[in-house]
């Protein structure tokens, strides 16, 4: 018979209840079968059977009561869940009885899962994870390639960079950067730091805001403009007056 969602839900809830407390319901059903058997026996006696014969015939008429109990329990409870739990218990018992096998299985799984997690973490960070900038999909690192040796990618001369910036029709903004490792002195121990010279529009291109102060503006790139610097947060904290 078909029924609505509500009906299925009600039936399921009833099964869960039956599964949670099987004993009283079992007992209830046993009493019900006894009562049914007694009525059948009475009927048979009325028809003229001897009491023993009547009981036997009643049993046949009703069907195997163990079988009925079993069916009733299956209908009432959650047979799938029960069977699953039985299987799970069996599996756990077998694992406990075979510690060597269990250890190998656990180690295999642990290594497999661990290796996968590690590899995925790296792949995610390097390949999948987007750059933390607005329009990260529109950011490109552009190289020059020497025409006589296709394998060498080089940086740009400033004039070529300026030509790319002013004449291309592909990028809405082009910024340049040149990296240097420099020694910072004058504050106790000299330290080696990573630096980069960037064009005035560099921060605007990434839409990046500073934690304090201001980022470079195109005017900072003009010839004769006073030199300006942006410190990374770590360096800045290191040289804060305490």
């Amino acid at each position, binding site marked *: 018979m078909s029924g609505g969602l509500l009906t299925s839900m009600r039936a399921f809830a*009833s099964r869960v209840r039956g599964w949670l407390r099987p004993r009283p319901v079992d007992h209830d059903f046993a009493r019900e079968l006894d009562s049914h058997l007694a*009525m059948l026996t009475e009927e048979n006696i009325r028809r003229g059977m001897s009491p023993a014969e009547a009981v036997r015939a009643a049993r046949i*008429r009703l069907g195997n009561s163990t079988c009925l109990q079993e069916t009733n329990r299956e209908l009432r409870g959650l047979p799938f869940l029960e069977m699953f739990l039985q299987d799970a218990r069996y599996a756990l018992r077998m694992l406990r009885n075979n510690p060597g096998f269990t250890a190998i299985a656990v180690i295999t799984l642990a290594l497999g899962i661990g290796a996968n997690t590690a590899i995925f973490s790296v792949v995610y960070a390097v390949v999948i994870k987007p750059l933390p900038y607005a329009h990260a999909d529109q950011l490109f690192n552009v190289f020059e390639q020497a025409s006589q040796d296709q394998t060498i990618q080089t940086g740009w001369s400033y004039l070529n960079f300026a030509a790319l910036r002013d004449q291309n029709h592909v990028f809405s903004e082009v910024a340049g950067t040149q990296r240097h490792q420099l020694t910072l002195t004058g504050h106790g121990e000299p330290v080696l730091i990573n630096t980069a010279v960037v064009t005035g529009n560099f921060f605007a291109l990434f839409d990046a805001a500073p934690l304090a102060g201001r980022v470079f503006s195109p005017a900072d790139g003009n010839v004769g403009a006073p030199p300006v610097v942006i410190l990374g947060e770590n360096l800045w904290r290191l040289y804060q007056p305490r």
Partner: protein
Amino acid sequence: MPANKSEILQGTLDLMVLKTLESMGALHGYGIARRIEQLSDEALQINQGTIYASLVRLLQKGWISGAWGTSDNNRKAKFYSITKSGRKQLHAEAQNWERISSVITRVLSLAERA
């Protein structure tokens, strides 16, 4: 066609139980089984116990309710009665049954003539 033979039989037994409870009022399992046997002119010989699977299904769907009581000859028995949603379901199923059986009858008579 919905399903295999046993499922159809299950459905028809449920339908007969519902109908019996609707026309007879509250009845115990023995009474329901007896009544169905009588109505079918003893043509339907079931293990009377199979009625209980049907009763559990109907109880779970909320179409019947059951309560312990005392029978005519003073015996404790669980009495089942049809609920409001059970009546609604019975009417829907009865209509459905008539439609299907009339279609099948028509198809079978066609096949005979051909």
